[in-house]
């Protein structure tokens, strides 16, 4: 399949690859997908508890080029947004930005799921202040 230049750019030069400390109460982690389905995304956000602004975002993705590009783009978009703003990011915007073909739309859906899952993990942690969940996104 011939890819769009933006996908190739994100794939070859992924932004924000890495991990944040999932034990930190300021960090929300979302892990979505399954190895059997061919894609797993781990997306993490570090949130300023005062301002609710996402100060850092990291990802690691097992998946095809579109899945890697979608998660890379998601981390780019998340940085600097408040949690409420982040929740407005829709998979359709990712599809549009990366010109994903119909067979790759599920990659963008997964990225949106990862964002929501990371935010919900952060929110759970910041309200309970308990030890972090082991099975995020389950």
């Amino acid at each position, binding site marked *: 399949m011939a*890819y769009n230049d933006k996908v*190739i750019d994100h*794939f070859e030069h*992924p932004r924000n*690859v890495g*991990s944040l400390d999932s034990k930190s109460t300021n960090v929300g982690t979302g*892990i*979505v*997908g*399954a*190895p*059997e*389905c*061919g*894609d*797993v*995304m*781990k997306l993490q956000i570090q949130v300023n508890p005062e301002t609710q602004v996402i100060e850092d975002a990291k990802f*690691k*993705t*097992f*998946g*095809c*080029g579109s*899945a*890697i590009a979608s998660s890379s783009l998601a981390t780019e978009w998340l940085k600097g947004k408040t949690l409420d703003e982040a929740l407005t990011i829709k998979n359709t915007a990712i599809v549009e930005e990366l010109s994903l073909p119909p*067979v790759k739309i*599920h990659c963008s*859906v*997964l990225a949106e*799921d990862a964002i929501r*899952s990371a935010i919900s993990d952060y929110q759970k942690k910041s309200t309970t202040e308990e030890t972090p969940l082991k*099975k995020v*996104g*389950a």
Partner: protein
Amino acid sequence: MAKVEKSTNPFKVFSKVAASSERKVIYMDNHATTPVDPRVLEAMMPYFTTVFGNAASRNHAYGWSAEEAVEAARLSIAQMLGANPKEIVFTSGATESNNLAIRGVAEMYAEKGKHIITTAIEHKAILDTCKYLETKGFEVTYLPVDHYGQVRVEDIRAAVRADTILISIMAANNEIGTINRMAEIGTFAKERGILFHTDAVQAIGRIPVNVEDWKADLLSLTAHKIYGPKGIGALYIRRKNPRVRLSPILFGGGHERGVRSGTLNVPGIVGFGKAAELVRELLPEESARVLKLRERLHQGILAQVDEVTLNGHPTERLPNNLNVSFAYVEGEALMMSIPDVAVSSGSACTSASLEPSYVLKAIGVGEDLAHSSIRFGLGRFTTEEEVDHTIEMTVKAVQRLREMSPLYEMAKEGIDLKTVQWTTH
């Protein structure tokens, strides 16, 4: 228009073409197709222009020359298979050969029985033909294979019924390269008096193929997997012990003894004949050389990357095939990371159906590792330098993608991925 050079170096035309493209992509997909050998191209050229006759034209020199060339090619192909030239029927390719063999037997022997035995890992040209026949009242048994991809003769024995008319088993698998126990299967079919067809597309030119040794009654082959042109194939149809009869699937001028009507593709046939001649001439040396390169590739990867698993049989496999899964890395992403190497993958993301390889599934490879599989197919023109370059690029790509992979990270932290509760989507 390409001009064929009368060169002492037969590879010159080929290397010239490869060098002329902007970026040289290493071709490691010889199971999909092979380049036309320059010697084949050279043999074909006159048959497009000066010797352009219709081989069925009986009354003039143009027709006679074309017919003569066709018969010479038929002999060459028959000799490659240990067959009689009268047993070779030309088709448009292996898909047609497989259709003709299976549908031809089914219709011709329908009164004798309606049961066909094949395997779950055949090429779609076999599986879809069988599925079609199921809609026409035939019953098909799709045998499982062992975890190496070999059919067990006991399973065939157990599946045979009084009304079984055909056993169709591939000689070697196109994805994993596993070679079946052909002589054993053929002997069994003969004992039971059941016709035995084999799709030998991947085996021809890679391992010795002999219809007597295998006791094959029908055998499908195609030119483009043995450095011949695309669009020309053949079906071997046994004429003695037993004499196999087929109902045609194409009707018309009664060419090819009425089994396959249609004007013969003379340049294609001439190319096929030359390709078969080269196979006879080069096979032992070429297989040994390619096997050595395949081992170099496999060992070269294993030396630098851990958690690489071989799919298929360790020894009973085509010398040019390497199918491996790189744990924690998705196949399409890996292919994207090595744009200078042409390979294929069993990953769902590379298939039109979005399902991972049914062959890998049939041999018990988990879906996670099926998504991580890459097939390397070496060939006549593969060089040691290309193999080394492929190793280097593959290793680098796997390392980069593993650094990006959450699965790799979890595995390194000691998390058993099998116990994680994943979300589905």
